[in-house]
Structure formats: C-alpha cells, structure tokens
C-alpha cells in the first residue's frame, strides 16, 4: 500500500488537525458550547478495507456527506459516521432525536452543513498549505453501507482512500467519525508533490 515518509505523514496530520480545529471552532459557534476535534490517525487503504472498518460486512449502515473537489487535483471527499453516531451528532447539534429513517429533511440538511464545514476546513487547510487552488461542490447526503457509499463515485475506479479518523468532543460526548478522500494515482502523486513542496518551503 501507499506509504508516506514520517515527515510527510507528520505534515499531513498537522495540516488536517489545523483544518478540523477550525471546523470545531465553527461548530462551537453554532452549538453554543465547547467543541473539540482532532485527527489522531491517518491511513491509506483500499475502498474495501475502509468499508470493512465501517461495518459493511455486518450490513451496518452509515451516514455520509460527500463533496467533490477539483482543480489542482481531483477527489471525492466523504465525512462518514456509523449510523448511531450520526444520530448522536444530530441530536447534539440540532436538539432532536430520531432514527435514521425518520431523519427529517431538515436534519439531513443540518448534517449536510456539518459535513460541508468539516470537509471545506480540511481541504482549505490542505489547499493553503500546498498553495494550490481547488474548487468545492455543495454537499450531498447519503445513507447506506460503506460499500454503497464508497462505490457511489460512479466511475470505474482503482485508487487509494486517504482516511482520517476524527475524534469529536461535544458537551462531554465523545463521538468518532471518518473523513475519507478517494485518490486515484495522479491525485496521489499530486498529493505527495504538494506535501514535499510544503515541507521544502518550511525548511527554508
């Protein structure tokens, strides 16, 4: 599987921690309470592996918000929560409590906004670090198994998934989720180049 050097790995984690930190600040303004978020771990996996982590084998359902980014490189970005966790987030951010089927249009929209904030912050942090220009779409909301969700990109695809595990803390509730980026070989190479350029800039 694709591997980064320790320094590249460190740079990428720090960039994403920056992104989710800013996202947490935005969420805390919305919810009116303390929100902290961090990225303890990133990894490069196959779609099947990610789906497995999300319980696809057991038919477990997840809630996913997706956005498409293009420009300096092209990727499909996902914010994913296991079913129960997304309900918890909705309940905390929105103050309602329903099952996934019942998740009303209004709450789906709220979840979409949460995904929008987090994905934009993550990609924004990366784009700024890389000094590159990207373009981001509006979010879309999906519910399904990991297999369904990650196969949703539509085209024939054979690349790697950059997965970030995200820790959320809202009002003493501890929730975890995942941010994932589908990267084909060109995008993966671009990613490495941009990180190297960023590191070179840092070293002065």
């Amino acid at each position, binding site marked *: 599987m694709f591997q980064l050097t320790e320094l590249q790995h460190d740079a990428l984690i720090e960039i994403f921690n920056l992104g989710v930190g800013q996202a947490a600040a935005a969420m805390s303004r919305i919810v009116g309470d303390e929100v902290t978020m961090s990225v303890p771990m990133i990894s490069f996996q196959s779609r099947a592996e990610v789906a497995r982590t999300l319980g696809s084998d057991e038919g477990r359902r997840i809630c996913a918000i997706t956005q498409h980014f293009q420009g300096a490189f092209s990727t499909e970005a996902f914010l994913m929560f296991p079913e129960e966790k997304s309900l918890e987030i909705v309940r905390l*951010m929105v103050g309602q409590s329903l099952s996934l089927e019942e998740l009303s249009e209004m709450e789906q929209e709220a979840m979409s906004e949460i995904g929008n904030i987090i994905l934009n912050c993550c990609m924004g942090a990366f784009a700024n670090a890389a000094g590159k220009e990207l*373009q981001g779409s509006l979010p879309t909301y999906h519910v399904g198994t990991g297999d369904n969700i990650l196969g949703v990109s539509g085209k024939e695809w054979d690349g790697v998934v950059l997965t970030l595990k995200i820790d959320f803390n809202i009002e003493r509730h501890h929730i975890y989720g995942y941010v994932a980026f589908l990267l084909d070989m060109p995008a993966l190479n671009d990613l490495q180049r941009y990180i190297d350029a960023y590191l070179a800039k840092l070293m002065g």
Partner: protein
Amino acid sequence: MQLSLLQGVLKAVRAGIIVFDAEQRIVLWNQWMEQHSSFPADAILGKTFGEIFPDMVDGRTHVALRAALQNNFASLLSQTLNKAPFPLFANAGDAAAGIRMQQAVHVMPLEVESLPRHCLVQIGDVSMAVAREKKLRELAVELESQTLVDGLTGIANRRRFDQHLDDEFRRAKRNASPLSLIMIDVDYFKDYNDNYGHQHGDECLARIAGALCGVLHRPRDLAARYGGEEFTVVLPDTNEDGALQIAEAMRAEVESLKIEHAYSGVAGCVTISLGVSTLIPELAAKTGSLIHAADRALYQAKRTGRNCVVVYTDSKN
C-alpha cells in the same frame, strides 16, 4: 434580447439572488430580495457585505462568502443550524413584528468572464417546510403518547390498565357487580437480572407476561405490565373465589415455565407472588382502594414466603 430575457428571469424567480464581487460588494440584488427585505436594489448596489449586514460580520455566512471568494468553495447554511441569517420577512406584517423568514442559504463561487471571482448567494424560503416538519413531529409525539402496549412484553401497558380499570370500575358500580384485581410481583427479580443479565431478564418478563395472558379467556379480562417487574390483572364480574382460582392458575403456570433461577430464595426457578382483592364498588368508592388492597395482599404474600397467592381480607392490615 438575451439580456432582457435574463433580467426577466431574475425578476420572476422565486428565490433570493445576491451576487458579491471580489471585494464583497453587492453587484446583483434581485426583485425577490427587494420584496422580502427592507432594501431596494439602488440603495444596496455597490455597498459591501459589512456595510449592509454589520451584525453578520465574521459569522457563518460571512465565513462562507470569504471561502467562496478566496478558496473557491461552496457552502450550505441549513435552516436548522442557522436560524434566519439574513433580515428577510415573508410579508409586511411579519416585518413589522420582526418575525424573520426561515431560510435555506447556498453560497457558491461564481466565475465571471475576465473578472476576479464573484460569489453567488441563493436564498430559499423554507418556512412552509419547517412548519410542516413541526406538525409532523407533533403528530408523532402525540401518536406515541397514545400507545397502549408495553414495548417489551407486548401486553397492555400501565396507561391501558389505568383506563381499563376506570372503565370496569364504573361498570361494576353501575351493575353492582364484583370487580377483582390481582397485583403480581416477580420473586427475586433483581437477583435474576444481576446474575443472568438484563437481556435474560427482559426475556423472562416477556415469558411471564405470555403465561399470565394464557390463563385469561374472557374478553374484558386484562393482564397488564404495571411497572418494572410488576404485573396487574383486571377481572370484571369476578368474585373472590373466582379471582383466587385465576391467581393460583397464574402462579402455577409461571412456576411450570421452569425458568432457571439459581439465586431465588424460594425455588430453583422463577416464581411470582400474587395479591388479590375484590370489591363491589359503592357510590363513593375509588379504584385506589382496590389497588391498595391488592397491594397489601401482595405484600403479605411476600412475607408469607413468596410463590403464593394471598387474598385481601379486612382483618389483615
């Protein structure tokens, strides 16, 4: 011709459309925006976001505007998390009362030929959708509160029991007929739960409920789950002897389930204690006295050694 067509569309479209240039100045403010805000286009055009909306500076909308202009990112401001970000009103009445319209806002980068990037803000009125959702939620809550079935065991719940007892009590009063009540408590249930786990505890209660119902045959007889491990049975047109027979049958039925209980102080399996009371209600009588009597009898059954039936009599107090 093209231009007047587009202008016609912008005028007619039933959504707010605002366009900001790279310096956050408003360069387009369509008729819908004029109609629903207090700002006519000529007063607004050329002014910046901060000048027109000072309260919104550095808020979510402003951040989204900057993200569109600088990062080329699109943002969604959901109605649920952003209550009416723009000062917009459905009509003059609402405007006077200060009641803002519920809004769904999309903020998107806009490429304009030969000019730096602009930003398009699209605002939809979602007040109707919000009201509809609120109504649906209220109906769902109401529906749930009307439920008369205990989720775990599938038999009548406390609400249903209360209603049924009231009904039968009144009928018994009218007809001067005897109404009997059995109060039931599962013996050493806490010890069962502690040792076999709550899942088994739940299954045990469900089986007991089934056993109790199996003994009843008449349409107005009702077994209900009264509380955690308590059940109750309403027996209209039943005197003390009849109630005693039914109670004893129930006790035996549960014992014959042979649900293993190594921690019971009375038997190797799960058993129940039962208290029976009967009343021919007089004019001033209340259901409370029937319940209280059955309760006292149940207490006596526990004291006597459990796994038995006690019938309430006045002398026992």
